[in-house]
């Protein structure tokens, strides 16, 4: 089996690490090897966060090579853009449309691009793009903050990784605190349904 590479990009506090750990646990539940490389500490704190998830039979490098992403998960539009060096013409970009504008873009320097412009760029460089208003969906299960699980559900629902939905659900169970499991699974399911209703 070919190693699958998933870049998860977002903003510190959005649940990038939880997303990546749940995805890796899902792979383990399907008896695959998985690797997550993440960044803690100074590099979080509302800054850009990128996590590399690799799934396959035997993983070596913790990081994904440039141009090597099968999927880019953009938990935030600008961060999806920032991870374009990992894209190739077959990459699927899954985008949460909630924008978090960095202070730096308010004060000086380049401005935050319009969402339409970001989508246009992603479509130019990637094989396919699916945009989701994840917090809006997540609100249906009571917490907009579960947007990361909506995104994971969308990834699972598209069926592009060799991991069945049940493994995803068990992977989430291994990853999130027990008290929030039900809410997270509900958000996940909303994501699955959303993706299944789409044509990518």
């Amino acid at each position, binding site marked *: 089996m070919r190693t699958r590479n998933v870049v998860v990009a977002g*903003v*510190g*506090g959005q649940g990038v690490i939880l997303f*990546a750990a749940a995805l*890796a*646990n899902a792979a*383990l539940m399907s008896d695959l*090897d*998985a*690797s*997550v*490389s*993440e*960044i*803690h*500490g*100074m*590099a979080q*704190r*509302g*800054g*850009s966060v990128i996590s590399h998830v690799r799934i396959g039979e035997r993983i*070596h*490098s*913790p*990081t994904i*090579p*440039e*141009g*090597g992403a099968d999927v880019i998960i953009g938990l935030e539009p*600008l*961060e999806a*853009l*920032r991870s*374009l*060096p990992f*894209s*190739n*013409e077959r*990459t699927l970009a899954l985008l949460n449309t*909630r924008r*978090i*504008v*960095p*202070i*730096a873009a308010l*004060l000086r*320097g*380049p*401005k935050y691009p319009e969402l339409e412009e970001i989508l246009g*760029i992603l479509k*130019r*460089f990637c094989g396919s793009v699916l945009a989701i208003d994840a*917090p809006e969906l997540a609100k249906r299960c009571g917490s*907009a*903050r579960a947007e990361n699980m909506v995104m994971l559900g969308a990834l699972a629902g598209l069926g592009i990784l060799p991991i069945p939905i049940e493994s995803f659900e068990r992977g989430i*169970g*291994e*990853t*999130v605190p027990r008290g929030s499991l039900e809410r997270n699974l509900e958000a996940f399911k909303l994501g699955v349904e959303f993706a299944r209703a789409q044509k990518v």
Partner: protein
Amino acid sequence: MGNPRVLIDGKPGSKHLLLGNEAIARGLIEGGVSVATTYPGTPASEIVDSLAAVAEEAGIYVEYSTNEKVALEVAAGASLSGLRSSTSMKMVGLNVAADALMTLGYLGVRGGMVIITADDPNCYSSQNEQDNRYYALMANIPCLEPSNPQEAKDMLLDAYRISEELELPVLYRSVTRLSHSRRPVVFGEIARPRRAEFSRDYERFVMVPANARARHVALLEKMEAAKGISDSYPRNEELGDGELGIITSGNAFNYVMDAIEKIEADASVLKLGIVHPLPEGTILGFLGEHSPVLIIEELEPLLEMRIRALANENSIGTKILGKRELSLPRHGELSIKQVALAITRALGRDPGGLRFENPALSRLDLEIPARPPVLCPGCPHRASFYAIRASGIRDAIFITDIGCYALGSLPPLSVGDVLMCMGASAGLSAGVSKATGKPVVGIVGDSTFFHASIPALINAVYNRHRYIYVVLDNMTTAMTNFQPHPGSGLDSLGRPAKRILIEEVSRGCGVEFVKVIDPFDFESAVGALREALAFDGPSVLVFRRECAILKARKAEGRGPPLSIDRSKCTGCLLCINRFGCPAITLGEGGKPSIDAMLCNGCGFCALICPQGAIGGSADED
């Protein structure tokens, strides 16, 4: 690992997704560690954090020490007394502990001791990217370098065995990409802890000069004998087959394997599990059988320098290609791409045929706004910095320190003209104020104050320096995941402990102007700063307010989000241009608006809004 109990409940043979640092923690448990110490620092923190969660049940003594030197000494004391111990730290922490480290090898240990250093190539969370394998050479102690979480667990057992065989501490080197990688890890059996027994040995343990001279010779002899251990170490592995040879170790090995696969090269890889002392016989044999031999390692050419010397001593003419010939940098982290290009060139192939980046990317003509890390919404440090700026101290030079508050050096707060290393603010401030005669404000966090500021503060009093020392006390070690410290009133396992107050320590150091202020009491904060400026001598201002994240985790949670009354707001943008909370963004019509998902409800922006336009509950837009 959702539940930390997996570390003690997981059965031998079971498989779990673990962070590299959690795998190290399990390795320590399997190795029968009795005493595990640390000072928190990214990327090492989760080793002891995850041990602390199960320490009581596992019967392990766990300690967040005041700094890395103390941590190393506490662990060394336990090992001298026959117990297996560990101390773990980020790489710069070993500089703090270096004084103890350089002599510990002379004393040696009795119970196995592992010193874990987590290096940070590419400075993801650090002020430098030093390569701590140098310390193994300088202290002349064995150094092991695992390459993935499974090895990081398994090789700890080897480290303890080698440590006890040689009666030396073993340096155990991780890097960010190992410590913060999650991989499946298969558990092994848990060893029984050793029994403590201290027996005197004057010649060995008391490093007066006469004993030290003899113990240095003893250390050199031990490390000569260690070459045999190194040569027979089964984790020095040869993989693959080819005329071309590659010697590598640690995380660099992973890139080598992926690069070879990507470019379909025939190569033989010698992966070293032990990097000091070198397995000389193994390396000489490898050099004799391959040509050329590439040496691929992250950061410094530490294997390369010694392997070249070894080849030279043994008159081996094999072509050795290292950092310079392969154009591999001494900075940053390696990548599959860099290593693939290096091997391609060494094979005499055309690197132009290698494809990595999306070729279309060269046509992307958009400058992507940067998103540096920022102080969190509700962070009390932001209020402190805002008060420092508002106090109008002219010409002030700001000397900041290591912690979340280093982020205050970024616009719009811009409080931070110098930042160097843990606790350096207290000493640097003295030098800058002495040299310039200008007002100097030193800034330090609570945990950093206890870690390394106190001797410099005493120095400031004793040597009549004049500066304002602002201690930002958020009652936790926030940057590294909220570990307790001496001023938090909690011990390492979160139980109540004697609380050591920064103001009392400061007075005890002889500081005559000491005040404690809540930074959300804006008027008092500004007033205290102005008073301190007029004081002739060092002054300490403790700005105390609990970390917003820590507070939000507790029962009281976060406050309801605020909103901006657009009819009152004049669009002066002070809240964005001067205060800079990430929850305040630019809304329609050039007026600010509050992102309810980000707002922590702290209310400080409402306090400083000149129009009184901020308050109430969630914003409509």
